[in-house]
C-alpha cells in the first residue's frame, strides 16, 4: 500500500534534523529508529535518545492516508542521501516492511510499531517562556558552548547553565578551569529560573538554529526545556545537579588591563601553538611596557616566540595558560577588540568586550 510520495529533499531535510541525536546501537532497538507520522497534510519525523527528543514537521500538502511507523534512522537517511537529487521517492508498506522506491531503486526496510516508540512525557509544569530571535540565541550559544566540560566526573559541568533573572537570560559554561558567561536582555521579566541543559542538547541546538530573525521559543518547565523554532521542536531533560556559583569566580580586583586586537592575538597564538607541549598545551605570556611576549616550548626543547606591540602600561607580568583556553575565546568571538584584565600569576584573567556587560570569560592560569 502506498503511504507517501515526495521529492527526496522534502524528506531528507526533516529527517537529517532529527537523526543527529539517534544512537546507532542501543539496547532498545527502537531507539535507533526514527518515528515517521503523517497526519493530515503534515509529515513529522521524531528521534530520541530518551534524554532529548527532536521532532521536525513538514506541511507540504502530503496526500494519502495517515500512518505512523518507525524505521532505522541511519539506513533511511543513508538511502535518501545516496539517491539522486530531485528524485521522487515513494514509501510503501507491505506487512511490517517499509519499501522505499526511487527511480529503479527499491529498498525494503524492517519497521517497528510506532506505538512502541518511547516519546518523552511532556512536563506541563511550565515556569517561563522566553522568546528571542533564533540568530540571537545561536550567537549567545556560540559565545559559551565551547567552555562546557566533556565527560567530566562532575556531570553537572557537562552541560550549559541557563538562568532567567529579571529581564535577563544568562548562559554559563565551565569545565572547572575556565568559564564563559553570556547574557541578553529580554523584553519581559521573569522570576529566577535555573536549569542545566545536557551538552548534547546544546550542541544539537546550536547546530539546528539558523542565523535568522525568526523566533525561537524556550519553554522552561520543572525538569524539561522545550525549544521550538521553524519546523523543529526539541524537548530536553535537564541535568539534575547543582551548578557551581559562577558569580564568585569572576575576579573583582584585577588591575592589569591589556586591550588587544583579537585577530592579531589569535594569529600570534596560533603560530606559537605549533610548538606548545602537546599534552599540557602551555603558553607563557610576558607583559612589559608596550610589549606582549608569547612563548611556547615543547618536549623536544623547540621554542616559539612572538612579540606583539601593545598599549600596556600596567605592572610587568609573567603568567602561564593552557593555550587552548585562549584560542577558544579568540576563535569563538567575532569582535575586533578584547580586554584582558590580569591579577597576579596565580589568579584568573578576565576577558571582556569593552563597554559590554553581556560577555565574560575567565581562565585560570597554569604554573609554568
Amino acid at each position, binding site marked *: 500500500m502506498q503511504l507517501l510520495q515526495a521529492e527526496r529533499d522534502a524528506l531528507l531535510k526533516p529527517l537529517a534534523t532529527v537523526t543527529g541525536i539517534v544512537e546507532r546501537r542501543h539496547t532498545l532497538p527502537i531507539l535507533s529508529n526514527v518515528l515517521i507520522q503523517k497526519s493530515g497534510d503534515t509529515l513529522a519525523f521524531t528521534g530520541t535518545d530518551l534524554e532529548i527528543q527532536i521532532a521536525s514537521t513538514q506541511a507540504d500538502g502530503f496526500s494519502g492516508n495517515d500512518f505512523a511507523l518507525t524505521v532505522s534512522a541511519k539506513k533511511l537517511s543513508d538511502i535518501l542521501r545516496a539517491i539522486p537529487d530531485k528524485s521522487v521517492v515513494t514509501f510503501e508498506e507491505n506487512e511490517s516492511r517499509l519499501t522505499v522506491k526511487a527511480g529503479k531503486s527499491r529498498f525494503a526496510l524492517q519497521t517497528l510499531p510506532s506505538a512502541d516508540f518511547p516519546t518523552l512525557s511532556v512536563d506541563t509544569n511550565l515556569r517561563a517562556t522566553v522568546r528571542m530571535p533564533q540568530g540571537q540565541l545561536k550567537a549567545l550559544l556560540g559565545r559559551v558552548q565551547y567552555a562546557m566540560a566533556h565527560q567530566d566526573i*562532575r556531570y553537572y559541568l557537562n552541560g550549559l547553565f541557563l538562568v532567567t533573572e529579571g529581564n535577563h537570560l544568562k548562559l554559563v559554561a565551565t569545565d572547572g578551569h575556565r568559564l564563559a558567561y553570556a547574557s541578553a536582555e529580554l523584553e519581559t521579566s521573569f522570576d529566577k529560573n535555573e536549569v542545566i541543559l545536557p551538552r548534547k542538547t546544546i550542541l544539537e541546538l546550536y547546530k539546528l538554529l539558523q542565523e535568522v530573525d525568526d523566533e525561537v521559543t524556550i519553554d522552561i518547565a520543572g525538569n524539561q526545556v522545550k525549544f521550538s523554532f521553524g519546523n523543529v521542536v526539541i524537548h530536553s531533560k535537564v541535568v539534575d545537579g547543582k551548578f557551581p556559583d559562577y558569580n564568585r569566580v569572576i575576579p573583582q580586583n584585577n588591575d592589569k588591563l591589556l586591550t588587544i586586537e583579537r585577530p592579531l592575538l589569535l594569529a600570534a597564538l596560533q603560530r606559537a601553538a605549533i610548538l606548545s607541549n602537546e599534552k599540557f598545551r602551555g603558553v607563557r605570556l610576558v607583559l612589559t611596557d608596550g610589549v606582549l611576549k608569547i612563548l611556547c616550548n615543547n618536549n623536544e626543547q623547540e621554542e616559539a616566540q612572538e612579540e606583539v606591540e601593545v598599549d600596556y602600561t600596567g605592572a610587568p607580568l609573567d603568567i602561564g595558560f593552557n593555550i587552548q583556553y585562549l584560542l577558544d575565546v579568540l576563535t569563538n568571538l567575532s569582535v575586533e577588540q578584547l580586554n584582558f584584565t590580569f591579577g597576579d600569576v596565580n589568579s*584568573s584573567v578576565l576577558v571582556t568586550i569593552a563597554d559590554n556587560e553581556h560577555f565574560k570569560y575567565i581562565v585560570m592560569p*597554569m604554573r609554568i
Partner: protein
Amino acid sequence: MNAPRKIIHIDCDCFYASVEMRDDPSLRDVPLAIGGAADRRGVIATCNYPARTFGVRSAMPTSRALRLCPTLVLLPPDFERYRAASRAVHRIFRDYTDRIEPLSLDEAYLDVTGCDACHGSATLIAREIRARIEAEVGITASAGVAGNKLIAKIASDWNKPNGQLVVTPAEVDAFISPLPVDKLWGVGKVTAQRLHQLGLHTCADLRGWSQQALVTRFGKLGRSLYHQCRGDDNRPVEGGGRRKSLSVEHTYPRDLPALDDCLAQLPRLLADFTQRLARADPDEPPHKAFVKIKYHDFTQTTMECVCAAPDAAVFERLLRDAWPRGQRPVRLLGIGVRFADAAPVTDPTLPLWLGDEPVV
C-alpha cells in the same frame, strides 16, 4: 621520572574471620568460616587458619567445605562490622600517605615514595602500620614492600599470616625467576594450563620468550606477561578509590528453569541493586549496564550495553538478549553497572573552584 618507587601491599589476614574472632575469642581455635549456608548453595568467603588445615578455601562451595571439615563453624557475613574495621584500617593508612588504592575491604596498595614517616623507610612504615592495625583494630595484616605493585602484592603473600617481606630492586631478579607463572596477574586456571603445555612453569621459563612470541600466543596478556616475568610493572597506585563497577547477584536455591523465571527475579535484584547504588553514592553516573547469567552447568555469560541510567527495562532487555546464549536452567543471576575509566585530568591549569569554594 625514574626514581625508584616504594610500594606497600597490605593484606589483612583472613579478614572477615579475624573480625569475628576478635569479637568472639572463643572462635579463635576452632575451624571457622564465613559464608553462605550449604543448603542455599552458599560459598565460603573467608576461613581462619585452623579451617585451612582441613583444606577449606575461600570461594569453595560450603557443602564441600563441610564435607572436608564437619566441625566447621559457619557464620553468615556481617558486612557492617567488616566495613567498620576496614575504615579503621584505612584511617591508619592515611596517616602515612594519600596515595592509597583499595582493592577490597581488606587489601590496599600504598605508595609511600617520598613519605617522611619512619625516616622514609618503607620497611619500617609497613611494620608500624601492621603493629597499629593489630593494636588499634585488633586484627593482623601482612605486607609486601617493593618497587612496584606486582612484586609488592606477591611479596605480601610470602610470610602470611602476620608477616612481611621486603624485596629490594636488587633482589627482584632472584625473587621473580623461580616464581610459578600462576602467580602472575591475568593468569587464571586456563591460561596457566596453556602456559604449562608450552613448558612454561616459572617466570624464568617465560623470560626465554620474546615479547613478539608471547603477544602472538596470548594477545594483550602476552605483553603484560613479558614485563611481569621480569618484575617490571609501572602501574601507578591509583588513589581516590574510584569504583569500577557495582553489582548484585544471587544464587538461587533452585535453578530457574526458563527465561520467564529469570525475568521474574529481576525486580528483587533491581531493588537490591538500587539500594546499593544509592548507598555507594558514586560521583558520576554509570557508563554501562550489564547482566550476568551463570547456568546450572556453571558456564556463564554476561551482556552489557552503554547506558547512564539503567532501569528495569534495560536490564530486562539485556537478560532477554543474553539468556538465549545458554538456554539452560540458571543458578545465578547478577545485574550491575560499570563506571567509565577515569580520564586522568592532566590539565595543570589551576581550578576555578576547590569543592564549592572559589579559588580566587
